[in-house]
């Protein structure tokens, strides 16, 4: 240890970092965590829309830390946009625990076929589909570990794409749901579809120092005030701190990772809270700052040994960036269409639904020429936070309302109905037009090049998304919803990102090996969603957690051997 500041230095503290921090600290190794954001504690998190969404106080100032987004316009030309100029950005939570503090925590496992997408479904023109270098069975024990260690609630109900499990059920019972959950199940039955409970990374009963979910109804985009949500911070980092082996350094922005000319990292350089340059030495370095920023940091870390960026002599860093394919849709259940009894049960401040339709995870339809990869449909009620609702009330038939018309529209939206929703998750097919590079002109406040993110999508995303959305619409109509819509576009949900440093067996077309160790750098690991060559048709966080626990076992074994 005398030669190093710590055994392992981790850049980032979100879902890809938490399991490494937790496991390595508990195994007795000295861990230093460099997190660019502040250390917000549970007491800092409230259900304040001003903080969370109106002023975006959980993310960096776009004037200081922006991205350049490259998208294809309706005329077919690629156009660049600076995220500081408005619209959506690519930050999802800059603080200790990262975006896991603000996730909705839908915890679906990937299915066995997701690990062998190429072998099972074959190639698709224009898509860089490959099999994973590991199989579902390799990750299954770690899905089980996540369920137990961080706490997952739910109920296993068999369906035709139920993945094999080493445990019969989730460790925590399902969260309480709104009556509409039962209606969704019945709505599926009318079509012969099996709508089943969806697991959540939210505990329904106390666990260690964490309290059970108390149903604030402000969940996604909000930090959890009872620590029921299994953020990396609440579920893992707080436990790691108890060991005395974990040193969290907030407001520490890593800008360069230096190597020694022999394929080994010697230092991570960072700006501290006062923007002074600092550095950390370690035996092993783990980068986990979410897909875009992870690729950017490696690309920024150029030297003679790696003139194209760290671990990028293959030219693969930043390639095959993934988002979640699919989209969403909604409809309205008017209270006057319900019996008084049903209305009383439905019109309560309880927004959890936690039901999903997974029957179409594989599509067998002539439209797709036989079997094709499908996806997941989650059913929801509109979140409780009122600003999105008032925005929906602001216009009618495209006309800006004011005066009594506005007030009537607001009152109707809030008191005469509820908006029910579905979200579709299908594979975002990896392709040559979705990637991260460094912008040549624009820099951040420290003078470092910002990430340039090209957001090309594959048409198959839309085809599958629309197929699934039609099923979601049918269910909504079956439960009496009106004005049922769908929105399936090529616009990525920027809170669900992966890829860019895909793992694989061939160093020529992957950045990491099966252990998420860089092919080209002996002591570099990447454990956020960057490792994924394909992402499955589910939100990524559960799989990121499981994989990071898997890599943590490897690291403990490696450090043990090297001791």
């Amino acid at each position, binding site marked *: 240890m005398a030669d190093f500041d710590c055994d392992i230095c981790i850049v980032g503290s979100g879902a890809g970092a938490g399991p490494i921090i937790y496991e390595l600290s508990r195994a007795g190794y000295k861990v230093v965590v460099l997190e660019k954001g502040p250390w917000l504690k549970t007491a800092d998190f409230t259900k304040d829309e001003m903080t969370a969404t109106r002023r975006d106080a*959980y993310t960096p100032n776009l*004037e200081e830390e922006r991205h350049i987004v490259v998208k294809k316009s309706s005329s077919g030309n690629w156009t660049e946009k600076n995220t500081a100029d408005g619209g959506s950005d690519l930050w999802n939570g800059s603080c200790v625990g990262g975006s896991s503090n603000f996730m909705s925590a839908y915890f679906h496992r990937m299915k066995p076929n997701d690990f062998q997408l190429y072998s099972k479904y074959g190639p698709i023109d224009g898509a860089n589909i490959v099999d994973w270098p590991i199989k579902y069975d390799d990750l299954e024990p770690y899905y089980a570990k996540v369920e137990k260690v961080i706490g997952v609630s739910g109920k296993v109900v068999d369906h035709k794409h139920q993945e094999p499990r080493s445990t019969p059920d989730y460790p925590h019972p399902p969260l309480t749901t709104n009556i509409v959950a039962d209606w969704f199940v019945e709505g599926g039955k009318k079509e012969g579809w099996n709508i089943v409970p969806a697991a959540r990374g939210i505990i329904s009963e106390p666990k260690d120092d964490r309290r059970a979910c108390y149903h604030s109804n402000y969940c996604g985009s909000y930090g959890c005030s009872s620590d029921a949500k299994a953020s990396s911070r609440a579920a893992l980092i707080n436990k790691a701190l108890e060991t005395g082996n974990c040193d969290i350094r907030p407001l520490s922005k890593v800008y360069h990772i230096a190597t020694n000319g022999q394929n080994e990292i010697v230092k991570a350089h960072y700006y501290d809270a006062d923007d002074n340059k600092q550095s950390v030495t370690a035996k092993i370095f783990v980068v986990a700052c979410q897909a875009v920023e992870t690729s950017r940091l490696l690309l920024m870390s150029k030297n003679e040994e790696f003139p194209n960026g760290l671990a990028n002599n293959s030219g693969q860093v930043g390639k095959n960036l993934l988002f979640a394919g699919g989209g969403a849709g909604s409809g309205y259940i008017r209270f006057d269409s319900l019996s008084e009894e049903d209305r009383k049960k439905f019109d309560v401040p309880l927004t959890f639904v936690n039901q999903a339709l997974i029957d179409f995870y594989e599509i067998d339809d002539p439209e797709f020429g036989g079997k094709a990869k499908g996806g997941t449909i989650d059913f929801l009620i509109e979140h409780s936070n009122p600003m999105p609702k008032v925005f929906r009330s602001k216009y009618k038939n495209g006309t800006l309302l004011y005066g*009594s018309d506005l007030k009537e529209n607001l009152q109707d939206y809030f008191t005469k109905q509820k908006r029910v929703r579905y979200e579709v998750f299908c594979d975002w097919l990896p392709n040559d037009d979705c990637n991260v590079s460094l912008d040549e002109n624009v820099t951040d406040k420290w003078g470092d090049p910002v990430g340039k993110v090209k957001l090309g999508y594959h048409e198959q995303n839309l085809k599958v998304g629309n197929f699934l959305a039609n099923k979601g619409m049918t269910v909504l109509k079956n439960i009496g919803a009106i004005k049922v819509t769908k929105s399936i576009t090529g616009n990525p949900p920027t809170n669900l990102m992966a890829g860019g440093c895909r793992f694989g067996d061939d160093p020529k077309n992957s950045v990491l090996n099966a252990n998420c160790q860089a092919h080209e750098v002996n002591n570099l690991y990447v454990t956020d969603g960057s490792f994924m060559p394909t992402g499955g048709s589910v939100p990524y966080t559960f799989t990121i957690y499981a994989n990071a626990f898997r890599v943590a076992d490897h690291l403990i074994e490696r450090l043990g051997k090297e001791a």
Partner: protein
Amino acid sequence: MKSKTVKKSIPNRYLDLEQWQTDRRKFLRGALLAGAMTQIGLFPSCSTKLKEGNDLLTAEQATILNDVLNIFFPNDGNGPDAEDINAFGYVMWVLHDTLNRKIEDNAYILVGLNWADETAQEIYFSPFVELSQEQKEALVGKFTELDWGKNWSSMIITLILEALVLDPIYGGNKNEAGWNWLNHTPGFPRPTEENRYERIMEKQMKLVK
């Protein structure tokens, strides 16, 4: 009692562009002759009771803002009005919010108030604050259709909606009037002085380490 929004119209002569230009030229010529061109808007009528000015708004701007808020969110017998939710006070909090990263929006609010006054001068040859209530309503309604006015009106209405449903700690939603009217149950815990938005933003901006 509920009443529908009655869309007041601006005078017909302004729907006829040529006629409007003629009237406007006449007005400007008259104003020039009176030597008053540079003073338009600077001397409100003694008969008009102006809202108190403050460190950011002149009395005229404050009065225009207050009038616009009350027209966009009126006392019509259906729920709270702009006064009940303290929309004016909320906008003042917004204008004083130096941590807001979209600070240019605040300048836009002020520019719009000046535009509102200029438009009143152009159409009615009178400062906004001296218009009758009917004229003000007609003019503010027109803002939502004019090129410059559409975005500004949308922004002001967004501010009203924020004052309606955001936490009262920021000055709007007085006595939770908005939440009560809309049967809205807020999320708990609600922000306190220790963890309201400014305190979190200071941590994000490294003003507090």
